[in-house]
C-alpha cells in the first residue's frame, strides 16, 4: 500500500489502542469499608436508591409508598406502628404509642379519643413540641386539599366543614399545651381512625409550618432521622436527629441504626441491581426487573428474598358500562383469569390472589379463597348465556412494561372467551385520574392498591363503597353506586371502633360478598424484594415491615 495508506493505518491503530486502554480502566470497588464480623454494626452511612423521587417530602401531602418509607423516619404521629422483627410481617403491624404517652382513652360510644403527649418532646431544631401543633398539623393537611384529606380526618367534628370553607379550624380537636393533652371528637365512630393517626398524614410538625408544599425544605420533625440536603428529583439525606427527644428513647420511634442514609434516584432498576452487586448501593427501594429476579434468587440467597406485601392487583369492571353491568359477564371474566399465567408473565413477582383483602390484613379468610377456579370453558358458556358474545370492550392500560404485559394477557383472555377486546393506553401519570373520571365510562382496566394501614376498611371502604362513587377523582372504579346492600354493610362496619374477632369476621363476609358480585377480577398480591449489598447484615437487619414495606432505620451493616 502507498505511504498514505500506511499513515492512515497507523492512525487507526493508535486510535483503537487508546480506546482499548480506556476500556481497561479502573474497576475499583467504591463501596465503603464495612468492618469485621460479629454483631450488627450500628452507625455508619448507607446508600439507598429509588427509581423516582417521592411525590412529596412533606408528611401532610405524600401519598405513596416511596414517600412514606422516608417520611415515617423523620416524622411521628400521636401513635405509630410497631417495628416488628424485620422479617416479613405475618400479622399486621400493631398500633403503639408514638408521641403520646399511652394508647388513647376511647369513650364507649367511640366518639372521643383522649391523648397525653410525652414530656419534654422536641423537634430536630431543638424547639419544643406543643399539643396545639397536632391540631395545626391536621388543619394544614386539610387546608392544602391534601390527597389524604379523604381519609378519616374529615370524620373529626368540624373537619369536613374546614375542608370546604378553610375557615374556623377543626373544632373537634381541643388541646391544652400546659397539660399536654389532646382531645379529638369524631362526628361518628370510625374503626380505622386509630390507624389513620399512625400514618404520616397525621404526624406532628411545628405549628408555624406554612400550609404549602414544603418538599424543598422539609419542616423539622420528631423522628430519629431528619431529612436534609433536598436536591429535588436527585437526592436527599436522612441524618441522625441530634435533638432526638429523650422521652422517645427506647420507644418504637427510636429505631435508627445507621448514622446517615444517602438517598439517590436511578430510574433504571437494572442499573440499580448492578450497583448493589458492586457495592455502590446498599439497598434498592423498588423491585429488581423481572428478568434478573431469577438470577438473584438463584445466586444470591444470602442477601435476596421476596415477601408478600399487603397489596391487591386487579382488573376492575365498571357496572355502569355494559356488558359489565351483567353479573354473568363479570363472573365469566373471573373464571377466565389464570393467575399463574400472569404471574409468569411478570417474572414471578406476584403471589396468586383471589380475595379483595390481601393475606396480611385482618378479615382475610383463607377458606374463602378461590370462588372462581380457572375454567375457560365455563367462562365461554357464561358469556353465551349473558348474550354478550362479540361485545366491544375497551381495556384501559398504561405503557409501564409490567402493566402493559398483563393487559395484553387480559385482552387476549377476553377475546378467548368471546368478547371483542382492544387495549387503550394512557400515560401512567394520567391513568388513575382518567379511569377515576365517571363520564369516561371505562369498561375495564388495570388497578392496584397498596395498603395505607392494615385495616380492612382501607381496602373495602375506599375502593368499593358505593357511597364513595364521585364524578371526579374516584378510587372506586366499579362505580357500583347502586349497591345499597354493600354500602350499608360497609358503613356499619366502619363505625365499629375496635377490630374484635366478630368485627373481623364480618369484614370477611363483606369480602366474600364482593367476590360473589364479581366486581373485580383479582389476580395478585405483589411480592416485594429485599436485596442488599454484601456489607449489609441480611440475617438480623432485614427491616421488612408490614406497613412501611422496609423500615430503613432497622438496616445495619455486618
Amino acid at each position, binding site marked *: *500500500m*502507498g*505511504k*498514505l*495508506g500506511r499513515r*492512515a493505518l497507523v*492512525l*487507526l491503530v493508535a*486510535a483503537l489502542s487508546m*480506546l482499548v486502554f*480506556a*476500556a481497561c*480502566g*479502573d474497576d475499583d470497588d467504591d463501596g465503603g469499608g464495612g468492618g469485621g464480623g460479629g454483631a450488627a454494626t450500628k452507625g455508619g452511612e448507607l446508600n439507598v436508591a429509588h427509581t423516582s*423521587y417521592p*411525590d412529596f417530602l412533606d408528611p401532610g401531602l405524600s*401519598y405513596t409508598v416511596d414517600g412514606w418509607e422516608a417520611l415515617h423516619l423523620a416524622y411521628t404521629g400521636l401513635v405509630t406502628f410497631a417495628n416488628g422483627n424485620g422479617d416479613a410481617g405475618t400479622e399486621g403491624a400493631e398500633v403503639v404509642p408514638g408521641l403520646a404517652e399511652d394508647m388513647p382513652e376511647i369513650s364507649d360510644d367511640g366518639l372521643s379519643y383522649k391523648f397525653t403527649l410525652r414530656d419534654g418532646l422536641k423537634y430536630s431544631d431543638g424547639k419544643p413540641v406543643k399539643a396545639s401543633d397536632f391540631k395545626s398539623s391536621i388543619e394544614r393537611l386539610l387546608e392544602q*386539599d391534601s*390527597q389524604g384529606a*379523604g381519609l378519616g380526618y374529615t370524620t373529626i367534628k368540624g373537619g369536613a366543614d374546614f375542608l*370546604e370553607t378553610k375557615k374556623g379550624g377543626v373544632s373537634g380537636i381541643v388541646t391544652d399545651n400546659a397539660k399536654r393533652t389532646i382531645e379529638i371528637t369524631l362526628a361518628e365512630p370510625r374503626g380505622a381512625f386509630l390507624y389513620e393517626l399512625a400514618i404520616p398524614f397525621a404526624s406532628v410538625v411545628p405549628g408555624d409550618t406554612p400550609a404549602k*408544599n414544603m*418538599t424543598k425544605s422539609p419542616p423539622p420533625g420528631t423522628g430519629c432521622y431528619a431529612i436534609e440536603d433536598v436536591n*429535588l*428529583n436527585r437526592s436527599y439525606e436522612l441524618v441522625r436527629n441530634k435533638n432526638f427527644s429523650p422521652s422517645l428513647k427506647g420507644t418504637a420511634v427510636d429505631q435508627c441504626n445507621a448514622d446517615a442514609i444517602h438517598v439517590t434516584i*436511578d*430510574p*433504571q432498576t*437494572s*442499573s440499580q441491581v*448492578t450497583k448493589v452487586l458492586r457495592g455502590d448501593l446498599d439497598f434498592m427501594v423498588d423491585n429488581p426487573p423481572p428478568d434478573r429476579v431469577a438470577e438473584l434468587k438463584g445466586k444470591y440467597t444470602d442477601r435476596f428474598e421476596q415477601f408478600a406485601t399487603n397489596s391487591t392487583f386487579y382488573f376492575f369492571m365498571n357496572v355502569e358500562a355494559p356488558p359489565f353491568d351483567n353479573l354473568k359477564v363479570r363472573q365469566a371474566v373471573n373464571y377466565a383469569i389464570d393467575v399463574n399465567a400472569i404471574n409468569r408473565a411478570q417474572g414471578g413477582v406476584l403471589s396468586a390472589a383471589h380475595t379483595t383483602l390481601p393475606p396480611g390484613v385482618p378479615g382475610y379468610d383463607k377458606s374463602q379463597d378461590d370462588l372462581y377456579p380457572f375454567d375457560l370453558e365455563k367462562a365461554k358458556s357464561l358469556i353465551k348465556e349473558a348474550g354478550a358474545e362479540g361485545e366491544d370492550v375497551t381495556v384501559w392500560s398504561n*405503557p409501564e412494561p409490567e402493566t402493559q404485559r398483563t393487559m395484553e394477557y387480559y385482552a387476549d383472555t377476553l377475546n378467548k372467551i368471546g368478547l371483542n377486546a382492544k387495549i387503550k393506553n394512557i*400515560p*401512567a*401519570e*394520567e391513568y*388513575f*385520574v*382518567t379511569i*377515576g373520571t365517571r363520564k369516561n365510562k371505562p369498561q375495564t382496566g388495570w388497578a392496584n392498591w397498596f395498603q395505607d394501614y392494615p385495616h380492612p376498611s382501607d381496602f373495602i371502604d375506599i375502593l368499593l363503597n358505593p357511597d364513595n362513587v*364521585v*364524578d*371526579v*377523582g374516584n*378510587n372506586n372504579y366499579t362505580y357500583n353506586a347502586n349497591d345499597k346492600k354493600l354500602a350499608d354493610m360497609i358503613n356499619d362496619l366502619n363505625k365499629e371502633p375496635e377490630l374484635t374477632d366478630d368485627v373481623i369476621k364480618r369484614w370477611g363476609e363483606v369480602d366474600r360478598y364482593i367476590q360473589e358480585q364479581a366486581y373485580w377480577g383479582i389476580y395478585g398480591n405483589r411480592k416485594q424484594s429485599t436485596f442488599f449489598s454484601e456489607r449489609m447484615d441480611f440475617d438480623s437487619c432485614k427491616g421488612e415491615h408490614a406497613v412501611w414495606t422496609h423500615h430503613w432505620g432497622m438496616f445495619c451493616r455486618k
Partner: protein
Amino acid sequence: MRFTVRRLLNMLFVLWAVSVLTFLIFMVMPGGGDEQAALRIAGRNANEAQVQTVKKEWGLDDPIYAQYADMMKKVFTGDLISYVNQVNVREEIVRGIPRTASLVIGAGIIWLFFGVVFGVLSAVYAGRFTDRALNVLALVGISLPVFWVGLVLLYYLTDRIALFPPGGYTELGDDPVDWAYHLILPWFALSILFIGFYSRVLRSNVLDISSEDYVRTARAKGLSERRILIRHTLRNALIPIVTLFGLDFGAALGGGAILTESVFGLQGVGQYAAESIGRLDLPPIMGVVLFGAFFIVLLNAIVDILYAFLDPRIRLQ
C-alpha cells in the same frame, strides 16, 4: 453583512414558529390540554374543587394565547416549572447539558475522524478490496438502528463479558477516566451511523472531484498523487462534509441523541425530553424543544454563513 442579518432574523422567526407548533401540539391536540394538565398536577385522588384550584393557580383557565405568552415569558425568565413534579425546567436542562455535550461532542469527534479516514481510504483504493470492505461496513453502519446497537452492546459487552459499565454517567470532574469509560459504548453506538454515512459521502466527493478538470490539470502538470489529494481534492471534498457535520452535530445536540441517552441511562437533555414527552408534561417539552431547535437553527445559520464566506458565488448574490 446583510446576508448575516437576514439569516439571523430568519433564525428568530423559525424559533418562534417552532414554539407555537409545540404549544399547539400539546395544548390543542386531544389528549393534551388544560384539563389533563390540571388533573396531572392535582394528583391521583383530586376532587373537583382541587382541580379548579389548580387551574386558577396555574393559569390553565386563561385563553390559549394568554397561556402561550405566559409560557414564553417563563422560558426567558427561567421560571418554567414542570406539571408533574414542580421541578424547574431550566435547572434540569442545565444539569443535562454536560452529559449530552459529553456524548455528542465525543461521538462527533469520533465520527468525523473515522468518517474522513475511511472515506479517504475508500477513495484512494477505489474498486479494490479495502474499498469494498469499507463500503460493506459503511452500508451495515447506516442500516443499524441506534438503540438496538446500544442494547446489543449492553448485553454482550457489559453482561456476558463485563468489559464496560452497564450505563450511567460519571461527572468529568469527579473522575475523567471513569467518565470516558462510561461513555465509550454510547460514543460507539452513536457514531456508527454517521461514520458509515460520512465515509460514503466523502468517497463519492473525492472521486467526483478527482475527475474534474482542474485536478486533471494538476496531474498533467506532474504533481504527485498525494499532493493532489491533500491540496486540491480533499480541501474541496471536505467542504460538504463540514456542512453536513454542522447540521448533524446540531441535530444530535438538539435531540438526536435521545435514543442513545435513554438506552444507556445517561440522563442528559435527550433523556429528559423523552421522559417528559412520555408524560405529556408540556413545560419541559417546550424547554427541551426550544433548546434543541436553537442549536439546530444556530448551526444551520453558522454553516450557511460560513458557506457564503467560503464560496464567493453565493456572497455576490
